[in-house]
Protein backbone atom coordinates (compact mmCIF):
# COMPACT_ATOMS: atom_id res chain seq x y z
CA UNK A 1 0.00 0.00 0.00
CA UNK A 2 1.42 3.34 -0.98
CA UNK A 3 1.14 5.77 1.91
CA UNK A 4 3.00 9.04 2.02
CA UNK A 5 5.82 8.73 4.53
CA UNK A 6 4.42 5.56 6.15
CA UNK A 7 7.05 5.17 8.89
CA UNK A 8 7.20 8.78 10.00
CA UNK A 9 10.72 8.82 8.64
CA UNK A 10 12.40 12.17 9.08
CA UNK A 11 12.00 14.42 6.06
CA UNK A 12 15.44 15.56 4.90
CA UNK A 13 16.09 19.13 5.85
CA UNK A 14 15.73 21.79 3.21
CA UNK A 15 19.35 22.28 2.02
CA UNK A 16 19.39 18.79 0.48
CA UNK A 17 16.81 19.93 -2.03
CA UNK A 18 18.81 22.97 -3.16
CA UNK A 19 19.84 22.67 -6.81
CA UNK A 20 23.50 21.97 -7.42
CA UNK A 21 24.14 25.24 -9.25
CA UNK A 22 23.16 27.26 -6.17
CA UNK A 23 25.71 25.46 -4.03
CA UNK A 24 28.43 26.11 -6.62
CA UNK A 25 27.59 29.80 -6.45
CA UNK A 26 28.01 29.74 -2.72
CA UNK A 27 31.50 28.26 -3.10
CA UNK A 28 32.42 31.17 -5.37
CA UNK A 29 31.23 33.74 -2.85
CA UNK A 30 34.43 33.88 -0.79
CA UNK A 31 36.99 34.24 -3.63
CA UNK A 32 34.81 36.88 -5.31
CA UNK A 33 34.46 38.93 -2.12
CA UNK A 34 38.22 38.67 -1.54
CA UNK A 35 38.94 39.90 -5.05
CA UNK A 36 36.55 42.83 -4.59
CA UNK A 37 38.22 43.74 -1.29
CA UNK A 38 41.71 43.70 -2.85
CA UNK A 39 40.43 45.84 -5.73
CA UNK A 40 38.97 48.44 -3.35
CA UNK A 41 42.25 48.47 -1.43
CA UNK A 42 44.34 48.98 -4.56
CA UNK A 43 41.94 51.61 -5.97
CA UNK A 44 42.18 53.62 -2.75
CA UNK A 45 45.91 53.91 -3.35
CA UNK A 46 45.52 54.74 -7.06
CA UNK A 47 42.95 57.44 -6.38
CA UNK A 48 44.50 59.03 -3.29
CA UNK A 49 48.16 58.33 -4.02
CA UNK A 50 48.90 57.18 -0.44
CA UNK A 51 52.61 56.54 0.18
CA UNK A 52 53.50 52.94 1.09
CA UNK A 53 54.22 53.77 4.75
CA UNK A 54 50.58 54.93 5.14
CA UNK A 55 48.85 52.26 3.07
CA UNK A 56 51.05 49.70 1.28
CA UNK A 57 49.53 48.13 -1.83
CA UNK A 58 48.47 44.46 -1.63
CA UNK A 59 51.38 43.33 -3.78
CA UNK A 60 53.87 44.94 -1.40
CA UNK A 61 52.24 43.28 1.61
CA UNK A 62 52.44 39.99 -0.25
CA UNK A 63 56.19 40.47 -0.92
CA UNK A 64 56.79 41.44 2.70
CA UNK A 65 54.97 38.30 3.81
CA UNK A 66 57.17 36.11 1.62
CA UNK A 67 60.26 37.70 3.17
CA UNK A 68 58.92 37.39 6.74
CA UNK A 69 58.04 33.78 6.05
CA UNK A 70 61.38 32.85 4.52
CA UNK A 71 63.51 34.42 7.27
CA UNK A 72 61.37 32.70 9.94
CA UNK A 73 60.22 35.85 11.82
CA UNK A 74 56.55 35.43 10.94
CA UNK A 75 56.33 31.79 12.00
CA UNK A 76 58.27 32.38 15.23
CA UNK A 77 56.06 35.27 16.35
CA UNK A 78 52.89 33.54 15.18
CA UNK A 79 53.79 30.40 17.13
CA UNK A 80 54.31 32.46 20.29
CA UNK A 81 51.03 34.36 19.95
CA UNK A 82 49.23 31.12 19.16
CA UNK A 83 50.61 29.34 22.23
CA UNK A 84 49.71 32.32 24.44
CA UNK A 85 46.16 32.34 23.03
CA UNK A 86 45.71 28.58 23.33
CA UNK A 87 47.18 28.51 26.84
CA UNK A 88 44.99 31.42 27.93
CA UNK A 89 41.92 29.83 26.38
CA UNK A 90 42.62 26.55 28.19
CA UNK A 91 43.19 28.22 31.57
CA UNK A 92 40.24 30.60 31.17
CA UNK A 93 37.97 27.76 30.06
CA UNK A 94 38.98 25.46 32.91
CA UNK A 95 38.51 28.10 35.62
CA UNK A 96 35.29 29.48 34.11
CA UNK A 97 33.77 26.01 33.64
CA UNK A 98 34.54 24.88 37.18
CA UNK A 99 33.43 28.15 38.77
CA UNK A 100 30.41 28.46 36.49
CA UNK A 101 29.22 25.00 37.48
CA UNK A 102 29.54 25.86 41.17
CA UNK A 103 27.74 29.17 40.71
CA UNK A 104 24.93 27.54 38.74
CA UNK A 105 24.42 24.83 41.33
CA UNK A 106 24.68 26.85 44.53
CA UNK A 107 22.87 30.09 45.29
CA UNK A 108 25.17 30.64 48.26
CA UNK A 109 28.31 30.51 46.12
CA UNK A 110 26.59 32.80 43.62
CA UNK A 111 25.75 35.40 46.28
CA UNK A 112 29.28 35.19 47.61
CA UNK A 113 31.19 35.47 44.33
CA UNK A 114 28.92 37.26 41.87
CA UNK A 115 29.75 40.81 43.09
CA UNK A 116 33.49 40.20 42.70
CA UNK A 117 33.10 38.65 39.29
CA UNK A 118 30.93 41.50 38.01
CA UNK A 119 33.30 44.07 39.56
CA UNK A 120 36.28 42.43 37.85
CA UNK A 121 34.55 42.97 34.52
CA UNK A 122 34.23 46.72 35.02
CA UNK A 123 38.03 47.05 34.85
CA UNK A 124 39.36 46.77 31.28
CA UNK A 125 42.02 44.11 30.83
CA UNK A 126 44.35 46.74 29.35
CA UNK A 127 44.35 48.41 32.78
CA UNK A 128 45.30 45.22 34.63
CA UNK A 129 47.81 44.01 32.05
CA UNK A 130 50.70 46.22 33.28
CA UNK A 131 50.24 44.81 36.78
CA UNK A 132 50.46 41.25 35.51
CA UNK A 133 53.59 42.14 33.53
CA UNK A 134 55.14 43.62 36.70
CA UNK A 135 54.28 40.54 38.74
CA UNK A 136 54.99 37.77 36.25
CA UNK A 137 57.46 39.37 33.82
CA UNK A 138 56.93 39.76 30.09
CA UNK A 139 57.22 36.03 29.38
CA UNK A 140 54.56 33.45 28.61
CA UNK A 141 52.92 33.37 32.06
CA UNK A 142 51.69 36.96 32.11
CA UNK A 143 50.35 36.74 28.54
CA UNK A 144 48.50 33.49 29.26
CA UNK A 145 46.96 35.10 32.34
CA UNK A 146 45.82 38.15 30.36
CA UNK A 147 44.21 35.86 27.75
CA UNK A 148 42.60 33.79 30.49
CA UNK A 149 41.16 36.91 32.12
CA UNK A 150 39.53 38.06 28.92
CA UNK A 151 38.21 34.56 28.08
CA UNK A 152 36.91 33.91 31.58
CA UNK A 153 33.74 36.02 31.70
CA UNK A 154 31.87 35.05 28.52
CA UNK A 155 32.60 31.36 29.12
CA UNK A 156 31.50 31.66 32.76
CA UNK A 157 28.17 33.26 31.81
CA UNK A 158 27.52 30.63 29.15
CA UNK A 159 28.33 27.77 31.53
CA UNK A 160 25.94 29.18 34.15
CA UNK A 161 23.14 29.63 31.61
CA UNK A 162 23.87 26.16 30.20
CA UNK A 163 23.76 24.34 33.53
CA UNK A 164 20.65 26.27 34.61
CA UNK A 165 18.92 25.37 31.34
CA UNK A 166 18.79 21.68 32.30
CA UNK A 167 15.11 20.80 32.46
CA UNK A 168 13.86 20.19 36.02
CA UNK A 169 11.84 17.24 34.74
CA UNK A 170 15.01 15.57 33.51
CA UNK A 171 16.58 16.14 36.93
CA UNK A 172 13.51 14.48 38.46
CA UNK A 173 13.90 11.59 36.05
CA UNK A 174 17.52 11.13 37.09
CA UNK A 175 16.45 11.21 40.73
CA UNK A 176 13.82 8.51 40.23
CA UNK A 177 16.57 6.41 38.63
CA UNK A 178 18.80 7.04 41.65
CA UNK A 179 21.61 8.64 39.64
CA UNK A 180 24.52 9.71 41.82
CA UNK A 181 26.20 13.13 41.66
CA UNK A 182 28.74 12.06 39.06
CA UNK A 183 26.16 10.31 36.87
CA UNK A 184 23.93 13.38 37.04
CA UNK A 185 26.83 15.50 35.82
CA UNK A 186 28.09 13.15 33.16
CA UNK A 187 24.78 11.91 31.74
CA UNK A 188 22.64 15.03 32.08
CA UNK A 189 24.31 18.32 33.00
CA UNK A 190 27.36 18.07 30.74
CA UNK A 191 25.55 17.09 27.52
CA UNK A 192 22.68 19.52 28.24
CA UNK A 193 25.08 22.43 28.82
CA UNK A 194 27.37 21.50 25.91
CA UNK A 195 25.72 23.81 23.31
CA UNK A 196 26.12 26.83 25.60
CA UNK A 197 29.63 25.78 26.63
CA UNK A 198 30.75 25.55 23.01
CA UNK A 199 29.05 28.87 22.25
CA UNK A 200 31.11 30.45 25.03
CA UNK A 201 34.23 28.75 23.76
CA UNK A 202 33.66 30.26 20.30
CA UNK A 203 33.54 33.78 21.74
CA UNK A 204 36.47 32.95 24.03
CA UNK A 205 38.62 31.68 21.17
CA UNK A 206 38.57 35.03 19.35
CA UNK A 207 38.85 37.07 22.56
CA UNK A 208 41.90 35.06 23.60
CA UNK A 209 43.83 36.31 20.55
CA UNK A 210 42.93 39.89 21.50
CA UNK A 211 44.21 39.18 25.02
CA UNK A 212 47.52 37.94 23.66
CA UNK A 213 48.00 41.09 21.55
CA UNK A 214 47.08 43.35 24.49
CA UNK A 215 49.69 41.56 26.58
CA UNK A 216 52.33 41.89 23.87
CA UNK A 217 51.61 45.60 23.42
CA UNK A 218 51.95 46.27 27.15
CA UNK A 219 54.97 44.02 27.70
CA UNK A 220 56.61 43.60 24.29
CA UNK A 221 58.97 40.68 24.13
CA UNK A 222 57.91 38.28 21.39
CA UNK A 223 54.79 37.50 19.42
CA UNK A 224 52.74 39.26 16.75
CA UNK A 225 51.83 42.20 19.03
CA UNK A 226 55.51 42.90 19.62
CA UNK A 227 56.17 42.48 15.91
CA UNK A 228 53.51 45.11 15.15
CA UNK A 229 55.05 47.52 17.65
CA UNK A 230 58.53 47.03 16.19
CA UNK A 231 57.36 47.31 12.57
CA UNK A 232 55.41 50.49 13.32
CA UNK A 233 58.47 52.12 14.89
CA UNK A 234 60.42 51.35 11.71
CA UNK A 235 57.61 52.64 9.45
CA UNK A 236 57.45 49.09 8.00
CA UNK A 237 53.69 49.35 7.50
CA UNK A 238 53.64 46.35 5.16
CA UNK A 239 54.95 44.20 8.02
CA UNK A 240 52.17 45.56 10.29
CA UNK A 241 49.70 44.33 7.69
CA UNK A 242 51.43 40.94 7.54
CA UNK A 243 51.19 40.58 11.34
CA UNK A 244 47.52 41.58 11.31
CA UNK A 245 46.82 38.96 8.63
CA UNK A 246 48.59 36.36 10.79
CA UNK A 247 46.43 37.38 13.77
CA UNK A 248 43.31 36.97 11.65
CA UNK A 249 44.53 33.53 10.59
CA UNK A 250 45.05 32.49 14.23
CA UNK A 251 41.61 33.72 15.30
CA UNK A 252 39.90 32.09 12.33
CA UNK A 253 41.77 28.85 12.91
CA UNK A 254 40.76 28.71 16.56
CA UNK A 255 37.18 29.69 15.80
CA UNK A 256 37.03 27.12 13.02
CA UNK A 257 38.32 24.39 15.31
CA UNK A 258 35.60 25.12 17.87
CA UNK A 259 33.01 25.23 15.07
CA UNK A 260 34.22 21.82 13.90
CA UNK A 261 34.06 20.50 17.45
CA UNK A 262 30.51 21.83 17.63
CA UNK A 263 29.60 20.01 14.45
CA UNK A 264 30.89 16.73 15.85
CA UNK A 265 29.64 17.01 19.44
CA UNK A 266 26.27 18.56 18.62
CA UNK A 267 25.42 16.36 15.66
CA UNK A 268 22.21 15.47 17.53
CA UNK A 269 20.96 19.05 17.22
CA UNK A 270 20.53 19.34 13.45
Amino acid at each position, binding site marked *: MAVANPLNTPIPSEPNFKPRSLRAHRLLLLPVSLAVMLLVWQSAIWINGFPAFILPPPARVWQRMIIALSDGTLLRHTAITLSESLGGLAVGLAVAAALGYLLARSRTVERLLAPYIVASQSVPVVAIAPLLIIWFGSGLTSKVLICALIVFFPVLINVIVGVRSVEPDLRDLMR*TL*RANRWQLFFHLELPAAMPMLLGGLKIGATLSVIGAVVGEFVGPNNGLGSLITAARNQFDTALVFVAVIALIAIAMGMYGTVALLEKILLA*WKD
Partner: protein
Amino acid sequence: MTPVLSIQHASLVYPNGNGGLLALDNLSFDVAPGEFVCVIGPSGCGKSSMLKLFSGLRRPTEGQIIFEGEPLVHPRRRIGVVFQKANLMPWRTVLQNITLPLELERVPGEAAMSRARELVELVGLAGFENARPRDLSGGMEQRVAIARALVHRPDVLLLDEPFGSLDALTRERMHLELLRIWDRYRKTVIMVTHSISEAILLADRVIVLTARPGRLRADLPIRLPRPRTLEQVFTPEFGALVTQVRAAIE
Protein backbone atom coordinates in the same frame (compact mmCIF):
# COMPACT_ATOMS: atom_id res chain seq x y z
CA MET B 1 -3.19 -9.35 50.42
CA THR B 2 -0.74 -6.82 51.85
CA PRO B 3 -0.63 -3.63 49.81
CA VAL B 4 2.54 -2.86 47.85
CA LEU B 5 2.00 0.87 48.22
CA SER B 6 -0.18 2.85 50.53
CA ILE B 7 -0.66 6.50 51.17
CA GLN B 8 -1.58 7.20 54.78
CA HIS B 9 -3.18 10.42 56.00
CA ALA B 10 -0.99 12.37 53.62
CA SER B 11 -1.27 16.13 53.37
CA LEU B 12 0.87 18.29 51.16
CA VAL B 13 1.33 22.02 51.57
CA TYR B 14 3.15 24.11 48.95
CA PRO B 15 4.75 27.12 50.59
CA ASN B 16 3.55 30.36 48.95
CA GLY B 17 4.37 32.94 51.60
CA ASN B 18 0.72 33.16 52.55
CA GLY B 19 0.28 30.27 54.96
CA GLY B 20 0.90 27.82 52.12
CA LEU B 21 -1.31 26.18 49.54
CA LEU B 22 -2.93 22.94 50.63
CA ALA B 23 -2.65 20.59 47.63
CA LEU B 24 -3.60 17.30 49.29
CA ASP B 25 -5.61 16.88 52.45
CA ASN B 26 -5.51 13.73 54.58
CA LEU B 27 -5.43 11.34 51.64
CA SER B 28 -5.38 7.59 52.35
CA PHE B 29 -5.70 4.48 50.18
CA ASP B 30 -3.90 1.19 49.51
CA VAL B 31 -2.75 -0.35 46.26
CA ALA B 32 -2.52 -4.13 45.99
CA PRO B 33 0.28 -5.88 44.07
CA GLY B 34 -0.54 -6.15 40.35
CA GLU B 35 -3.43 -3.75 40.63
CA PHE B 36 -4.10 -1.12 37.94
CA VAL B 37 -5.37 2.01 39.68
CA CYS B 38 -6.44 5.18 37.89
CA VAL B 39 -6.69 8.43 39.81
CA ILE B 40 -9.01 11.03 38.36
CA GLY B 41 -10.20 14.45 39.41
CA PRO B 42 -10.73 18.02 38.24
CA SER B 43 -7.59 19.85 37.15
CA GLY B 44 -5.65 21.30 40.04
CA CYS B 45 -6.81 18.60 42.44
CA GLY B 46 -3.28 17.56 43.26
CA LYS B 47 -3.18 14.37 41.17
CA SER B 48 0.34 15.06 39.95
CA SER B 49 1.43 16.08 43.46
CA MET B 50 0.13 12.75 44.74
CA LEU B 51 2.18 10.92 42.12
CA LYS B 52 5.27 12.91 43.20
CA LEU B 53 4.68 11.52 46.70
CA PHE B 54 4.38 7.94 45.40
CA SER B 55 7.60 8.35 43.41
CA GLY B 56 9.49 9.59 46.47
CA LEU B 57 10.46 12.82 44.68
CA ARG B 58 8.56 14.78 47.31
CA ARG B 59 7.67 14.01 50.90
CA PRO B 60 4.24 14.72 52.33
CA THR B 61 3.94 17.57 54.82
CA GLU B 62 1.99 15.21 57.05
CA GLY B 63 1.34 11.48 56.89
CA GLN B 64 3.45 9.01 54.95
CA ILE B 65 3.83 6.69 51.99
CA ILE B 66 4.46 3.02 52.74
CA PHE B 67 6.28 0.98 50.08
CA GLU B 68 6.42 -2.76 50.82
CA GLY B 69 5.95 -2.20 54.51
CA GLU B 70 8.48 0.60 54.94
CA PRO B 71 8.12 4.37 54.81
CA LEU B 72 9.21 5.79 51.44
CA VAL B 73 11.71 8.58 52.06
CA HIS B 74 13.46 8.89 48.68
CA PRO B 75 12.98 7.69 45.08
CA ARG B 76 13.43 3.95 44.51
CA ARG B 77 14.66 2.19 41.40
CA ARG B 78 11.83 -0.30 41.76
CA ILE B 79 9.27 2.46 41.27
CA GLY B 80 9.31 3.54 37.63
CA VAL B 81 7.85 6.87 36.53
CA VAL B 82 6.44 8.04 33.21
CA PHE B 83 6.02 11.81 33.23
CA GLN B 84 3.50 14.02 31.42
CA LYS B 85 6.18 14.95 28.94
CA ALA B 86 8.28 12.14 27.49
CA ASN B 87 11.43 13.71 28.96
CA LEU B 88 13.79 12.07 26.51
CA MET B 89 17.40 13.17 26.27
CA PRO B 90 17.70 14.77 22.82
CA TRP B 91 21.38 13.80 22.48
CA ARG B 92 20.60 10.10 22.91
CA THR B 93 19.08 7.80 20.31
CA VAL B 94 15.88 5.86 21.02
CA LEU B 95 17.89 2.84 22.12
CA GLN B 96 20.27 4.90 24.25
CA ASN B 97 17.35 6.62 25.96
CA ILE B 98 15.86 3.25 26.82
CA THR B 99 19.14 1.86 28.20
CA LEU B 100 19.69 4.91 30.45
CA PRO B 101 18.31 3.29 33.64
CA LEU B 102 20.48 0.20 33.04
CA GLU B 103 23.59 2.33 32.43
CA LEU B 104 23.01 4.09 35.74
CA GLU B 105 22.80 0.68 37.42
CA ARG B 106 25.98 -0.36 35.60
CA VAL B 107 24.33 -3.29 33.83
CA PRO B 108 26.87 -4.56 31.27
CA GLY B 109 26.35 -3.18 27.75
CA GLU B 110 25.48 -6.49 26.10
CA ALA B 111 22.72 -7.35 28.56
CA ALA B 112 21.39 -3.79 28.51
CA MET B 113 21.23 -3.75 24.72
CA SER B 114 19.35 -7.01 24.37
CA ARG B 115 16.88 -5.95 27.05
CA ALA B 116 16.35 -2.59 25.36
CA ARG B 117 15.84 -4.21 21.96
CA GLU B 118 13.19 -6.45 23.47
CA LEU B 119 11.35 -3.39 24.77
CA VAL B 120 11.71 -1.48 21.50
CA GLU B 121 9.91 -4.43 19.96
CA LEU B 122 7.28 -4.45 22.71
CA VAL B 123 6.34 -0.80 22.29
CA GLY B 124 6.28 -1.14 18.52
CA LEU B 125 9.31 0.99 17.64
CA ALA B 126 11.37 -1.64 15.80
CA GLY B 127 13.37 0.10 13.07
CA PHE B 128 13.66 3.33 15.09
CA GLU B 129 16.43 2.18 17.44
CA ASN B 130 18.87 4.78 16.16
CA ALA B 131 16.44 7.64 15.58
CA ARG B 132 16.80 10.81 17.65
CA PRO B 133 13.88 12.13 19.73
CA ARG B 134 13.45 15.17 17.43
CA ASP B 135 12.55 12.78 14.59
CA LEU B 136 9.77 11.11 16.58
CA SER B 137 6.09 11.99 16.86
CA GLY B 138 4.57 12.69 20.27
CA GLY B 139 3.12 9.19 20.51
CA MET B 140 6.42 7.57 19.62
CA GLU B 141 8.25 9.68 22.19
CA GLN B 142 5.83 8.60 24.88
CA ARG B 143 6.33 4.95 23.88
CA VAL B 144 10.08 5.40 24.30
CA ALA B 145 9.40 6.86 27.75
CA ILE B 146 7.28 3.81 28.65
CA ALA B 147 9.97 1.45 27.40
CA ARG B 148 12.55 3.34 29.46
CA ALA B 149 10.36 3.06 32.56
CA LEU B 150 10.04 -0.70 32.05
CA VAL B 151 13.61 -1.57 31.08
CA HIS B 152 14.96 -2.05 34.59
CA ARG B 153 11.90 -4.12 35.57
CA PRO B 154 10.43 -1.95 38.31
CA ASP B 155 7.64 -3.47 40.39
CA VAL B 156 5.53 -0.35 40.34
CA LEU B 157 4.82 1.94 37.42
CA LEU B 158 3.60 5.48 38.01
CA LEU B 159 2.07 7.25 35.01
CA ASP B 160 1.29 10.96 35.10
CA GLU B 161 -1.23 11.69 32.32
CA PRO B 162 1.16 10.06 29.89
CA PHE B 163 -1.19 10.37 26.91
CA GLY B 164 -2.53 13.83 27.71
CA SER B 165 -0.83 15.52 24.78
CA LEU B 166 -1.67 12.89 22.16
CA ASP B 167 -4.44 12.99 19.57
CA ALA B 168 -7.49 10.77 20.10
CA LEU B 169 -6.48 8.01 17.66
CA THR B 170 -2.92 7.70 18.93
CA ARG B 171 -4.29 7.75 22.44
CA GLU B 172 -6.53 4.75 21.75
CA ARG B 173 -3.63 2.83 20.26
CA MET B 174 -1.54 3.65 23.32
CA HIS B 175 -4.32 2.41 25.62
CA LEU B 176 -4.34 -0.96 23.91
CA GLU B 177 -0.57 -1.13 23.99
CA LEU B 178 -0.45 -0.27 27.67
CA LEU B 179 -3.08 -2.94 28.41
CA ARG B 180 -1.08 -5.48 26.44
CA ILE B 181 2.10 -4.59 28.35
CA TRP B 182 0.29 -4.71 31.68
CA ASP B 183 -1.22 -8.10 30.77
CA ARG B 184 2.24 -9.43 30.08
CA TYR B 185 4.08 -8.12 33.15
CA ARG B 186 1.23 -7.54 35.64
CA LYS B 187 3.02 -4.68 37.33
CA THR B 188 1.32 -2.50 39.87
CA VAL B 189 0.24 0.63 38.02
CA ILE B 190 -0.94 3.96 39.37
CA MET B 191 -2.00 6.24 36.57
CA VAL B 192 -3.21 9.80 36.83
CA THR B 193 -5.61 10.91 34.12
CA HIS B 194 -8.35 13.45 33.46
CA SER B 195 -10.23 11.22 31.04
CA ILE B 196 -13.08 9.23 32.57
CA SER B 197 -13.30 6.69 29.76
CA GLU B 198 -9.52 6.20 29.81
CA ALA B 199 -9.65 5.47 33.52
CA ILE B 200 -12.51 2.96 33.21
CA LEU B 201 -11.07 1.25 30.14
CA LEU B 202 -7.71 0.61 31.81
CA ALA B 203 -8.18 0.29 35.55
CA ASP B 204 -9.23 -2.27 38.13
CA ARG B 205 -10.13 0.63 40.36
CA VAL B 206 -10.83 4.30 39.84
CA ILE B 207 -10.04 6.73 42.62
CA VAL B 208 -11.75 10.11 42.41
CA LEU B 209 -10.22 13.15 44.11
CA THR B 210 -12.01 16.39 44.96
CA ALA B 211 -10.95 19.79 43.65
CA ARG B 212 -8.29 21.68 45.65
CA PRO B 213 -7.38 20.52 48.16
CA GLY B 214 -7.36 16.93 46.92
CA ARG B 215 -9.36 14.65 49.18
CA LEU B 216 -10.58 11.13 48.52
CA ARG B 217 -14.06 11.48 47.00
CA ALA B 218 -14.74 7.94 45.75
CA ASP B 219 -13.00 4.58 45.33
CA LEU B 220 -14.82 2.62 42.64
CA PRO B 221 -13.98 -0.97 41.59
CA ILE B 222 -14.18 -1.56 37.81
CA ARG B 223 -15.33 -5.14 37.26
CA LEU B 224 -15.26 -5.24 33.47
CA PRO B 225 -13.90 -8.48 32.01
CA ARG B 226 -10.29 -8.59 30.83
CA PRO B 227 -8.63 -8.49 28.39
CA ARG B 228 -10.27 -5.15 27.71
CA THR B 229 -11.06 -3.99 24.20
CA LEU B 230 -12.06 -0.66 22.72
CA GLU B 231 -15.50 -2.14 21.90
CA GLN B 232 -16.30 -2.37 25.62
CA VAL B 233 -16.61 1.40 25.61
CA PHE B 234 -20.00 0.97 23.90
CA THR B 235 -21.48 -1.57 26.37
CA PRO B 236 -24.20 -0.51 28.84
CA GLU B 237 -21.97 -1.58 31.77
CA PHE B 238 -19.29 0.86 30.62
CA GLY B 239 -21.85 3.61 30.24
CA ALA B 240 -23.15 2.99 33.76
CA LEU B 241 -19.61 3.25 35.14
CA VAL B 242 -19.00 6.52 33.27
CA THR B 243 -22.16 7.94 34.85
CA GLN B 244 -21.04 6.74 38.25
CA VAL B 245 -17.56 8.29 37.97
CA ARG B 246 -18.91 11.51 36.53
CA ALA B 247 -21.39 11.78 39.41
CA ALA B 248 -18.51 11.31 41.85
CA ILE B 249 -16.45 14.07 40.23
CA GLU B 250 -19.28 16.64 40.19
